[in-house]
């Protein structure tokens, strides 16, 4: 499998933490920002979905690469918030991008580990000979859905989520022209199902008016079943437990030393967590790419967006990448890639 190109589409509206000062104590807001490291991020206007952002990114990518729409054998969209309960959003993308009917089209419901899981799926599809070319779409748009936009955040429990998460759509092209995957790892622990969860709105808690009613949680904060719950301490201990052994296994499989790697790109969970992982694994700090300060945590889009915006000249020359996804599920996956040239295109804004 070869990673051929990456493109991205972002909402043009830039949101800043200071928009929360009106309703919350500046101390509380600044403390969260100090932890997450998100100085600004993008928030989509009402009506724009993750699928919209991904389709625009893919359109740019296909044009830029000069790939015939009929040459795409698989189209996979990764998001936690598709356009519809059914059908999968990838079907809308296939239609609007004009991709051939003879294409394998489906969605995957993943977040933090979505890009690395998705890359592993394409590695399997390509190495098995099932497909030659494929497009992975990774996008998230949760503003006003799982969490309020910063300027409208009213409740203390939504504040961290409101400040942390950003919206973005990315498209990544894979082909069978080469074998760039040097190591791969994956895992899951469903015991952590409720560590990061939106409990309402699907079959377990179906559509009733109760979905929109606020009831007090353990800390007396009024919450709805459709609000995102993220248990920070549990996410941190999960990351401590799973990510360092995963990276160790990837190093062993690839035969690379930590210094051989040109760029470490962790899922942009939050800056505190990434800093911790860097210290714990003694990674060379200057090689760890970060974009969270500018775009926030964009879920499955965070790794490709970071490669695209922080990869610099490494995108145009032979580069060894360590890509690490971890989060919702709980799930984790990693992939070591040795690329030659990754084609990238200026970011689109809508």
């Amino acid at each position: 499998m070869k990673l051929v190109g990456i493109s991205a589409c972002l909402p043009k509206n830039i949101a800043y933490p200071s928009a929360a000062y009106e309703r919350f104590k500046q101390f509380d807001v600044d403390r969260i920002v100090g932890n997450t490291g998100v100085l600004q991020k993008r928030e989509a206007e009402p009506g724009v979905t993750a699928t919209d952002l991904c389709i625009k990114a893919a359109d740019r990518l296909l044009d830029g690469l000069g790939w015939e729409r009929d040459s795409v054998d698989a189209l996979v969209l990764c998001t936690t918030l598709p356009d519809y309960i059914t059908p999968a959003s990838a079907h809308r993308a296939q239609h609007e991008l004009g991709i051939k009917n003879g294409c394998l089209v489906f969605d995957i419901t993943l977040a933090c580990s979505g890009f690395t899981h998705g890359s592993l799926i394409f590695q399997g599809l390509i190495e098995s000979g099932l497909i030659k070319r494929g497009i992975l779409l990774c996008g998230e748009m949760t503003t006003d859905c799982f969490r309020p936009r910063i300027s409208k955040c009213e409740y203390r429990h939504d504040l961290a989520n409101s400040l942390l998460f950003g919206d973005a759509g990315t498209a990544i092209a894979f082909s069978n022209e080469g074998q760039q995957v040097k190591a791969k790892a994956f895992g899951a622990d469903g015991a952590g199902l409720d560590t990061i969860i939106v409990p309402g709105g699907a079959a377990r808690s179906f559509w009733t008016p109760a979905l929109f009613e606020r009831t007090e949680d353990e800390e007396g904060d009024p919450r709805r079943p459709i609000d995102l719950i993220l248990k920070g301490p549990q996410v941190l201990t999960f990351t401590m437990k799973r990510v360092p052994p995963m990276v160790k296994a990837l190093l062993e499989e690839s035969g690379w030393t930590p210094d051989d790697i040109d760029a470490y790109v962790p899922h942009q969970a939050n800056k505190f967590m990434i800093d911790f992982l860097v210290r714990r694994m003694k990674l060379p700090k200057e090689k760890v790419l970060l974009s969270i300060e500018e775009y926030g945590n964009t879920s499955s889009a965070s790794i490709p967006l970071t490669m695209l915006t922080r990869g610099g000249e490494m995108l145009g020359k032979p580069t060894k990448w360590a890509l690490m996804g971890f989060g919702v599920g709980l799930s984790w996956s990693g992939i070591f890639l040795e690329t030659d040239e990754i084609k990238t295109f200026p970011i689109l804004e809508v």
Partner: protein
Amino acid sequence: MTKAEFIKELAEVLMVSADELTPDTELSKFEAWDSTAVLNLIVLLDEHGLSVDEEKIPDCKTVQDAITLAGIK
């Protein structure tokens, strides 16, 4: 890690002087005793080779509770 060392580190997490902390001090009186403090405390203990049940950290009411949870004698 000694009790005094732990208190010094805890004081940094709480953004106060170590002199302000005695075993009986109530953690809730500090503005900085929040979820960020919990994360910082987990990392601090981890870096000293101590692992704690993260779900129990928010239950700590006093400095002594945190010392006990960390398993420091």
